[in-house]
C-alpha cells in the first residue's frame, strides 16, 4: 500500500523529480517556484540523487542548459514562474521545435506590471503557443503524479515533446497536502530510462537546430503541429496506464454534476476545487448547474470539451488571465471549439482571481447569477473582469 504523507506541494514535486531519476536539473530561483529547486539542490548535494545540478545566471540559461543536456539524451528538468518564464520564452519554442522531451513545472504567477508575486495564469498564457504539451493541475497529488506521467509521455517515440505542468503558485506550491507517494519499484516500471531517438554524440555526428529557408519552414511547422495533435491517443494511454497502477485516472476534460446541467462553469487549475463547492451549494438550492474542468491545455481537447458542454444552455467560463484587447484565452478556445455546431450554448466569460485575488464559492454563485440574467436578457457573449471596484 502506498504511503500517504502530509508535505508541502513544492517538496512533493521535488521528490517526484528525484524518483523520476532525472539526470540534469537547471533552474534559477524565482518566487513561488523556488522551494522546488531549493529542495532538489539539497537532495543532489546530499548525494541522494545521481544528477547534475546547474546553478545558472538566468532562466534563459536554465532552459538553454536543459536543451543541451536533453539533446545528449539526459533526462532534464527545470521550473520557473512569471518573469522568469518571460526571460525563458525564447528557448521554449526551440525546445519544442527540436522535439526535446524536457519537463518544466511552472508555478503560475502574475506577469508585471504592476509588480506582483501572486497567482494567476498570465505567465502560462504568454507562452500558450510554444508547442509544448501543457497540463493545468488542480492539487498537490496531481503535481506529483504528472511528473511521472509527463516524462513517460514526452519521451514516447510517438510523441517527443517537452511538457509543462502548470500549478497555481502559492495556493498549490506553498500549501501542505496529503500526498500519496508511489513506491520506487512501481515508478521504475512505469518510467523506463530515456531512450532518445536522436542524440548528440561524437561517435555519430548529427546537426540539431539548423536554420530553415522559406522553402522548407512551413513543412517543419506542419510536421510539429500534426505530431502534437496526434499525441492525444498517447496522452490518454499514459493516463490510463497510470490509473491502472495507482487508481487515479485523469482525463483531458473532467466534469462534475455536468451531465444534466443547463448552466456549466468552466475552469482550469486549482479553482476547480472551489467551484465544485459552489456547485454543491447551488445544487442543494435546486439549480441546474455543473462544472467542467480543463486539465489538458495543449493539445487542446476540442472533441472532449464539446462532448462535455454541447448539451448545456450556457457556459460560464472563468479565465485567470487577460488577453488585453480581446478576452480571456480559455473563453476564446471554448468558443472556437463550439462554433462549428449550430446548437451551441452561449458563452459568458469572466476574468476572475487575477494576481491572487481570492475567488470564493459565493463568487462563483454570483458569476453564475449574473451570467444567467444577462443571457436571459439577450447579452449572450458577455465578457467582464469580475469583482472590480467601480
Amino acid at each position, binding site marked *: 500500500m502506498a504511503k500517504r504523507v502530509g508535505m508541502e506541494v513544492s517538496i512533493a514535486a521535488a521528490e517526484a523529480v528525484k524518483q523520476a531519476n532525472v539526470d540534469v536539473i537547471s533552474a534559477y530561483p524565482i518566487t513561488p517556484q523556488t522551494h522546488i529547486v531549493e529542495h532538489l539542490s539539497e537532495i543532489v548535494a546530499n548525494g541522494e540523487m545521481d544528477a547534475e545540478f546547474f546553478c545558472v545566471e538566468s532562466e534563459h540559461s536554465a532552459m538553454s542548459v536543459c536543451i543541451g543536456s536533453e539533446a545528449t539524451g539526459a533526462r532534464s528538468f527545470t521550473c520557473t514562474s512569471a518573469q522568469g518564464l518571460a526571460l525563458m520564452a525564447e528557448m521554449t519554442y526551440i525546445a519544442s521545435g527540436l522535439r526535446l522531451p524536457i519537463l518544466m513545472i511552472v508555478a503560475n504567477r502574475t506577469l508585471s506590471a504592476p509588480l506582483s508575486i501572486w497567482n494567476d495564469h498570465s505567465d502560462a498564457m504568454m507562452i500558450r503557443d510554444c508547442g509544448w504539451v501543457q497540463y493545468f493541475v488542480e492539487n498537490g497529488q496531481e503535481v506529483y503524479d504528472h511528473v511521472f506521467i509527463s516524462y513517460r509521455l514526452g519521451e514516447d517515440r510517438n510523441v517527443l515533446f517537452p511538457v509543462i505542468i502548470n500549478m497555481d503558485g502559492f495556493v498549490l506550491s506553498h500549501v501542505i497536502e496529503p500526498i500519496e507517494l508511489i513506491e520506487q519499484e512501481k515508478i521504475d516500471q512505469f518510467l523506463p530510462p530515456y531512450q532518445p531517438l536522436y542524440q548528440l554524440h561524437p561517435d555519430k555526428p548529427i546537426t540539431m537546430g*539548423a536554420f530553415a529557408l522559406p522553402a522548407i519552414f512551413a513543412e517543419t511547422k506542419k510536421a510539429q503541429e500534426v505530431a502534437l495533435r496526434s499525441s492525444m491517443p498517447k496522452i490518454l494511454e499514459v493516463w490510463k496506464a497510470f490509473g491502472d497502477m495507482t487508481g487515479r485516472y485523469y482525463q483531458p476534460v473532467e466534469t462534475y454534476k455536468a451531465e444534466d446541467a443547463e448552466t456549466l462553469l468552466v475552469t482550469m487549475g486549482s479553482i476547480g476545487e472551489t467551484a465544485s463547492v459552489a456547485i454543491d451549494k447551488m445544487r442543494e438550492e435546486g439549480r441546474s448547474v455543473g462544472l467542467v474542468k480543463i486539465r489538458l491545455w495543449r493539445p487542446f481537447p476540442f472533441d472532449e470539451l464539446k462532448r462535455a458542454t454541447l448539451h448545456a444552455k450556457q457556459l460560464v467560463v472563468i479565465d485567470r488571465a487577460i488577453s488585453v484587447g480581446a478576452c480571456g484565452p480559455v473563453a476564446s478556445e471554448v468558443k472556437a471549439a463550439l462554433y462549428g455546431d449550430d446548437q451551441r450554448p452561449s458563452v459568458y466569460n469572466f476574468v476572475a482571481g487575477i494576481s491572487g485575488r481570492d475567488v470564493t464559492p459565493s463568487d462563483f454563485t454570483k458569476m453564475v447569477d449574473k451570467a444567467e440574467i444577462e443571457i436571459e436578457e439577450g447579452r449572450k457573449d458577455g465578457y467582464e473582469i469580475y469583482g472590480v471596484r467601480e
Partner: protein
Amino acid sequence: MTKPESEWTWKELPVGNVILEPGNASQYRTGDWKSFKPILNKELCIHCGLCYIFCPDMAYNLDAEGYFISDLYYCKGCGICSKECPTRAITMVVEEE
C-alpha cells in the same frame, strides 16, 4: 546526396528537423547570392595567393597551371579578392544569367 529542400514533404522530415548526414553544408549553393563575379586577368596574376587567403568562403582553388580560380558554386561575389589583389588582376563584373 540530400535532395533540394524544395522537394521535401512534411512527412519525410526527421523528427526535430535533425540533419543526419554530417557535412552536407557543402551542397549549399551560396554562389546564387552574388550579383558580381570575379574575373581573373592571367597576364597580371603573380600567383601570390592573396585571393585564396582572403576569400571568406574558401571558394578559391589552385588549378593545374598554378592559378587560383574562384569556384562560382560557392563565391558570393563579395569582391574582397579583387580589393586585395596587389596587381589588380581580378575585376568584379556584373553577373548576367
